[in-house]
């Protein structure tokens, strides 16, 4: 498992921005949530990875669009070409939308063969800290 911490570096462009190309103000980076689904579309691109998952959960069956860290930062956090293909069942770890809607910002992923790559979110780091201190 390759899983490294690049949180601040990955989230800062231009002094205070979370990501290039648009604001990431709509995402809640204090939370982390896993979402499992079948890949319908995946583009490894900068400044954001683009992903559509077909998801079945308590809300029903539907396609959900996600975006994520830049391909370059994901590469340095373990991503390699063809790790994710259309038809694969994967789990992504997202900073959810603040309004509770479908979608979110992918910070890490577990591929079809179990390989995990990505960046620890602030929420995950906090969860790890609490666990280490025996508070959770």
């Amino acid at each position, binding site marked *: 498992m390759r899983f490294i*911490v*690049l*949180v*601040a*570096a*990955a989230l*800062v*462009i*231009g*002094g*205070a*921005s*979370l*990501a*290039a*190309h*648009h*604001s*990431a*103000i709509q995402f809640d980076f204090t939370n982390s949530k896993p979402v499992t689904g079948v890949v319908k579309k995946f*583009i490894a*691109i*900068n*400044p*954001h990875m*683009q992903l559509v998952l077909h998801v079945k959960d308590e809300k029903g069956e539907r396609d959900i669009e996600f975006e994520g860290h*830049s*391909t*370059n*930062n994901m*590469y340095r956090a373990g991503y390699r070409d063809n790790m994710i293909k259309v038809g694969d069942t994967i789990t992504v770890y997202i900073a959810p939308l603040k309004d509770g809607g479908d979608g979110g910002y992918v910070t890490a992923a577990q591929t079809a063969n179990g390989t995990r790559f990505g960046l620890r979110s602030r929420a995950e780091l906090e969860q790890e800290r609490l666990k280490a201190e025996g508070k959770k």
Partner: protein
Amino acid sequence: MQRPFRAATSMAAAALALLLLGSTDARGQQPDFTGVWTTYNESGQAPGGGRGGGPPLPMTDVAKQKVAKYQALVQPTGDTPGGFCLGTGMPGSMLGSGGYPMEIVQRPEQIMIVYEAHNEVRRVYLGDRIVPEGDRLPGRNGHSSGRWEGNMLVVETSHLVEQVDQRYAHSDKAKIVERYHLEKGPKAQTVLVAEMTMTDPVFYTAPVTTVKKWEKVPNGHLLPYECAEETWIKHLEQLENKAAGKK
């Protein structure tokens, strides 16, 4: 016999220092900064090289008003230049450029610095390559001219445009001096230290200084960063949908 011994000792010490601090250029006089560098985080320092935050800057009232006006515009949406595929500009570019690595290609007459984020490029001209004052165009990274002071590379940057969209806001009168030298980290890493001083009589009441440190990435490579590709792909999808009669 003491003098020859001292001279030999000094020469040996100088040679050892060069070995410790990395390779030298073809003339064997200056250090060679060529290579890929990533932000060096000293023990106890937050990842990202200590960007953002920091003590308040000694801004003039004029600068404070301009920055406040800009912040009021963008804070509700979180918009940034990077959000529009625009590079950070100096001095933000040399202070980390989003935490992405940079590559330096050094020649005696010109040093190229490529920051991976947004493929932002700076050219530092030396000697006869320095562009005459009257032939320089202003820009977000300005015009940079360099000179060597022993093992220290001194880079002076002028012809900047006013920028309120970065941590170190500045006017078009700003001048930036960077002083680069090599050190060894505690794990014997090669560390490039950049001491930055910005003077700007319009925006600051005193010089602004900070230090950025980079760590050499052995056999490192920059990755491609085509920031506008996402916009182009989405535009093509919209055209395809329109052609197919979809909304």
